[in-house]
């Protein structure tokens, strides 16, 4: 479905763009239907930029990004809207993804405004409730409340529900559980796992290697904008070929193994 072919992204900085910063260098990757691809990298690795480009929020400087062989960068107006019907995103900070001055359920109303203006209100309410139940939220718990009255886990699930209101085929999940508490993050991950089983493709952007392996089929390791290693998740983690990946794995705090002990 989604394909990056030798994609570069360079930002211009300073007065009249005199300085350049290359955030993404020559990245190629692919996400297929029903596949979860983990994009793992530390801060400054360009992983978020890749996610934004996949969502059409930023355009590549060089290279091609296509969805079903249609270039994403050139989409405007109606075509871009059509793209966002199929490809949606959930971001890292749930409290920053909700406009703090509005009630949290406004995110659903915006989807209706943007994509389904002709759906009658009662029918729309039903759809929202169905979507909320799909992410295991009780509608009464989360509707008509302000973001600060809800927990991070509830907000992130609402955003997934929002994406499910559309007929999405690809979800870009950018660090969606890093701000959540341990007891709820696994629920969000399991939810993604279930959606994947139903055919959803997921680009799972994270800095946390443990979370990356749990649901992903393939893993792409990034450093400073470049892909250092990619392949089936088990292979990348069991036999890392690149030294950077090995160092990264060595630094991960395991739950049952100390850093200076061999991994069990």
């Amino acid at each position, binding site marked *: 479905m989604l394909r990056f072919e030798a994609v570069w992204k360079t930002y211009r900085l300073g007065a009249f763009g005199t300085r350049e910063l290359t955030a993404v260098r020559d990245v190629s990757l692919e996400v297929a239907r029903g596949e979860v691809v983990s994009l793992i990298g530390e801060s400054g690795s360009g992983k978020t930029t890749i996610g934004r480009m996949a969502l059409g929020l930023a355009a590549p400087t060089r290279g091609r990004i296509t969805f079903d062989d249609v270039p994403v960068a050139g989409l405007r107006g109606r075509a871009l809207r059509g793209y966002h019907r199929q490809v*949606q995103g959930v971001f890292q900070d749930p409290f920053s993804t909700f406009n703090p001055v509005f009630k949290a359920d406004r995110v659903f109303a915006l989807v209706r405004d943007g994509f389904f203006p002709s759906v009658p209100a009662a029918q729309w309410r039903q759809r929202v409730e169905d979507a909320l139940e799909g992410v295991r939220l009780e509608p009464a718990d989360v509707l008509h409340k302000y973001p600060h009255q809800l927990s991070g886990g509830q907000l992130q699930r609402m955003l997934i529900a929002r994406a499910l209101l559309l007929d999405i085929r690809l979800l870009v999940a950018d660090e969606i559980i890093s701000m959540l508490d341990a007891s709820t993050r696994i629920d969000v991950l399991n939810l993604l796992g279930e959606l994947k089983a139903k055919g959803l493709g997921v680009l799972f952007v994270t800095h946390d290697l443990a979370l990356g392996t749990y649901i992903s089929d393939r893993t792409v390791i990034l450093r400073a904008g470049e892909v250092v290693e990619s392949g089936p998740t088990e292979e990348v983690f069991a036999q890392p070929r690149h030294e950077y990946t090995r160092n990264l794995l060595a630094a991960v705090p395991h739950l049952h193994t100390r850093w200076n002990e061999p991994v069990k």
Partner: protein
Amino acid sequence: MTDTEHVEAPGVPALAEPAAPLAGRRREVLHFALRNRKVVGGSVVILAFLLLGLVAPLFTDHGPNEYVGPPSAPPSADYWFGTTTFGQDVFLQFANGIRSTFVVGLLGGGLAGVIGMTVGFVAGYRGGLVDELLNMLTNIVLVLPALAVLIILHAYVGITSVPMQALFIGLFSWPWVARAVRAQTFSIRSREFVDLARLSGMRPLAVIRREIAPNMSSYLFMTFILLFGGAVLMAATLDFIGLGPTDVVSLGLMMNSAVHWSALHLGLWWWFVPPGAAITAIVGALYVMNVGLDEVFNPKLREM
């Protein structure tokens, strides 16, 4: 730019938008605003002055500058605020002055607000080259000595009416608004809800109007208050140096002519205290309203 013009109006209620959530929010803002003592108190003061300025002059057939009574008379039943050295009715001048003060403040402050916010929003949201160019324009106007330019403009064009005076003031007092709004927009633009709005099919102007501006509504209102006050003071300055419209009265002109004719030394306190107190009360009431509105707009403060 019709889309951004809505933003100019003070506070959120004018952010006209047919969509259901915003209408709901407007009702809610109103609900909390009517229960906020600061907002209600401030509005009462402003409306009282506005009413006085609008209504009082209707009940007299004299012009505010006519010599109607004994000179230098203290306040009495006939002349509520006394008379000037020349026998003009201070109350009549006061009521008319409030009128032109509101006109200058609203028009001048409003115009500066529209220009400043338009430039600030566009520059902050678009960034890049557009931002650089608008920033340059802003800086050019910012460093122009507004007063000197207004004096020169007056010499060539002539300021014949209060609205015209307001127009000129508005044209030169927007740069700091543009800079402030740009900076705020810049920081809000990087928040993720802006991305989410774009993913919901919102176009840039809608994003500015429906996502970014509501986050700054109390700030925009504060800006408008400062512009209002600034325009009033600037008008008073121009009036004082003889560059104001001639046959009208303003609170600034009253105070300045009081000083000019040594009202302070002659003990004619009723000549300069009312206009001074009125300017203070109007700007002060707007300020109190702003603090209250901050609580109304920010759902988190509401609960405190």
